[in-house]
């Protein structure tokens, strides 16, 4: 079963090369912790900042670590082999993206729980932060994977991935920060959460298809 093989392979690679994941996570931690040092540590200010800071650091961290999602497989030819199997290529790409989310974003969200407690977030808001981050990282990972696949043929994509991802990810950043902000002032945040859920389904269903066609373009 090809899907199980891909899952097992991605897990194995990420365990053997755990520095890749760790680098991304530490990057996330550093960005999230540098904001209070720069802006001041008043409780009101931090509570106002926590939503945007979480979203922006998650965006930056996933953009940075996504560069390695397809590149090694593209160089050693695995992607090409995946393309010529009888399975749908989009489905295989969807599995790869979900594996990336599990390996990278789930630890990131766990870490975020501890970071937001340094921002004085307590109680039920903590749960909202986790929910918002789950929904928004799913969308962000799909968008970044699309950008990474567009830039596969470029030797040194560098900031190009960010230039592509940031404008496209704007709705997620806006509504994600809004959801956390509203929950902290204990107001109804179901609107932004519904929007984020919609974006999550939208990007998770269409993202792998577009990403797969971008990879096909880069390979042939």
């Amino acid at each position, binding site marked *: 079963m090809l899907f199980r093989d891909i899952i097992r392979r991605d897990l194995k690679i990420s365990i053997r090369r755990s520095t890749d994941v760790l680098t991304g996570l530490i990057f996330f931690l550093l960005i999230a912790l540098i904001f209070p040092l720069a802006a001041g540590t008043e409780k009101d200010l931090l509570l106002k900042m926590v939503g945007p800071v979480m979203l922006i650091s998650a965006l930056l961290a996933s953009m940075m670590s996504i560069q390695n999602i397809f590149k090694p497989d593209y160089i050693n030819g695995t992607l090409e082999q995946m393309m010529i199997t009888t399975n749908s290529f989009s489905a295989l790409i969807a599995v790869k993206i979900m594996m990336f989310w599990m390996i990278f974003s789930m630890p990131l969200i766990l870490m975020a729980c501890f970071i937001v407690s340094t921002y004085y977030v307590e109680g039920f808001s903590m749960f909202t932060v986790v929910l918002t981050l789950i929904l928004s990282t799913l969308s962000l990972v799909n968008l970044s994977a699309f950008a990474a696949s*567009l830039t596969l043929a470029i030797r040194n994509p560098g900031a190009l991935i960010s230039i*592509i991802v940031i404008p*496209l990810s704007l*709705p997620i950043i*806006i509504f994600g920060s809004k959801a956390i902000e509203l929950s902290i002032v204990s107001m109804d945040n179901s609107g932004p959460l519904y929007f984020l859920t919609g*974006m999550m389904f939208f990007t998770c269903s269409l993202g792998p298809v577009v990403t797969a*066609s971008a990879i096909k*373009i*880069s390979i042939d």
Partner: protein
Amino acid sequence: MNLKSIYKYGSPPHYFKLSLQLEYWLLGSGVILILIGMVGGLFIAPPDYQMGDAFRIIYFHVPSAYLSMSGYACMAVASVIGLVWRSNVAFSIAKTIAPVGAAFTFLALVTGMLWGKPMWGTAWVWDARLTSELILLLIYLAYILLHQSIEDRSKADRSSSLLALVGVINLPIIHYSVVWWNTLHQGSTISKFDSPSIASEMLWPLIFMIFGYTIFFVGVVCRGSAGEVLIREKRSKWVRAFIEGIKS
């Protein structure tokens, strides 16, 4: 207009000849219309009751804002045609629209800022339309940068076309999520055709400007994409014949 004629004008030599014939007419009539509109707008139209002479910048602001968006739509349509039919002509058109559209977007932003400084007191406000216009500019720039950094031309064409398509799906979402904030920008004044809220002496120069800008835009794209087609087809017989024709 059947499918055959699409294939005919989609073939590079036909497109090249057609745009060579059209470009000077388009550019010329565009410039004439813009000049008429400028005279009408800057000298004939009366100053506005509230804004004085400052309102006259709409004669540059409205057409460029409108072209920045419809230019993106044209680019997306050309990208679809290019991706489906692998047409070099469509890819050349999409590639040429990108910098032109980015320039008009930039123009719309700058004229808006020049108008906003005396009217709103600040050059920039985080208002929905301004922000989505800025995002539009960024997406244009991402398209141009992506196209330039991929070395293989065919890969560059198809990858950046895909980006243009994703952008066209995402732009309405971005726009409506930015509308979440209170909006300061005034509603458009001439879309209500039965009872326009603008005086007719002020309206006709604007219509001249819009048509002039559009025709000028098409002319620039014609000229640019004809050159692009020529570069792409540089090894073919008809280009050689064309060059020989110029030399002799």
